[in-house]
């Protein structure tokens, strides 16, 4: 009788605690997901002042395969530009454009259905962007599927 009474008294010290391990697992998985997504998107989204047309007919991007081509104005001469695509840099002189054309042709040969998203700074002269478009048009195969990237009105 005495032993049973003592055991009952000890049970009074038991604490109830939530098992936090699944919560922490899930949180870390989410953190890893967002870190990876942000790293991928920041590699594709070179900071640019994109055109913001009135009453845009643009659509939200979907998950189609894409090659993002950014035309970035040079800091020293805003009428000149550098092309960034697939983690590589290309100049807009004849040699650089030839390399860019070869890059686009290879990318389209590897994934013929992929889209080419062209991001160019709004202030760039059209004459600077035109050779980039022409290189894309000359990249062979079926006509390229080009999409022009704009900034949504009211966006940051």
């Amino acid at each position, binding site marked *: 009788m005495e032993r049973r009474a003592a055991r009952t008294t000890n049970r009074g010290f038991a604490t109830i605690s939530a098992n936090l391990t699944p*919560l922490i697992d899930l949180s870390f998985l989410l953190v890893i997901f967002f870190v990876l997504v*942000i790293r991928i998107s920041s590699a594709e*989204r070179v900071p640019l002042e994109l055109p913001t047309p*009135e009453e845009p007919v643009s659509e939200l*991007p979907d998950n189609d395969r894409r090659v993002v081509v950014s035309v970035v104005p040079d800091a020293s001469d805003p009428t000149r530009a550098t092309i960034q695509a697939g983690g590589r840099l290309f100049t807009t002189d004849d040699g650089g454009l030839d390399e860019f054309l070869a890059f686009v042709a290879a990318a389209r040969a590897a994934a013929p259905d992929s889209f080419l998203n062209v991001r160019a700074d709004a202030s760039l*002269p059209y004459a600077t962007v035109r050779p980039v478009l022409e290189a894309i048009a*000359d990249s062979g195969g079926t006509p390229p599927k*080009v999409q022009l990237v704009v900034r949504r009105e009211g966006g940051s």
Partner: protein
Amino acid sequence: MSRRRPIAAASGAGTLNLVPMIDVVFQLLVYFILGLSLEMDEELIRTDLPRRQAAAGIAIDDEPAFVDIAPASAGKLPMTVRGPISFSASTPAELRSRVREAISGPRPTLAPSQRFVLKPLPGATWDDAIEAFNALAGAGATRIAFWREATP
């Protein structure tokens, strides 16, 4: 006479305090979620591009409408349409209105499949070209391309 500490409390002294770690993890989550949503302000305008080809005869029924785009100044974007229809517009809204009327007005003069060729003039910017492209697409044009010189 010393008081005995309860056994359960003594065993709890060795556990990790997870609350600060959870706080930090949630702070990181909020940071990344906000950072990602701030970048989602870009949209796409679908287009097609002309391929380089030798100059060929243009059929009458397939005569493109050329849109000359002069550099924007003082809030105006002078544009001149030449071809099956001819007129001048000083803003993208005016171009959109005139082309929409020609395509889907009471007495349409253009088919929705009418080809438009944008020709930005020297000094015009990428922004000017996009404004004109967007205005034509908004008017219902489905075949819009950028002009390029045909090579023999």
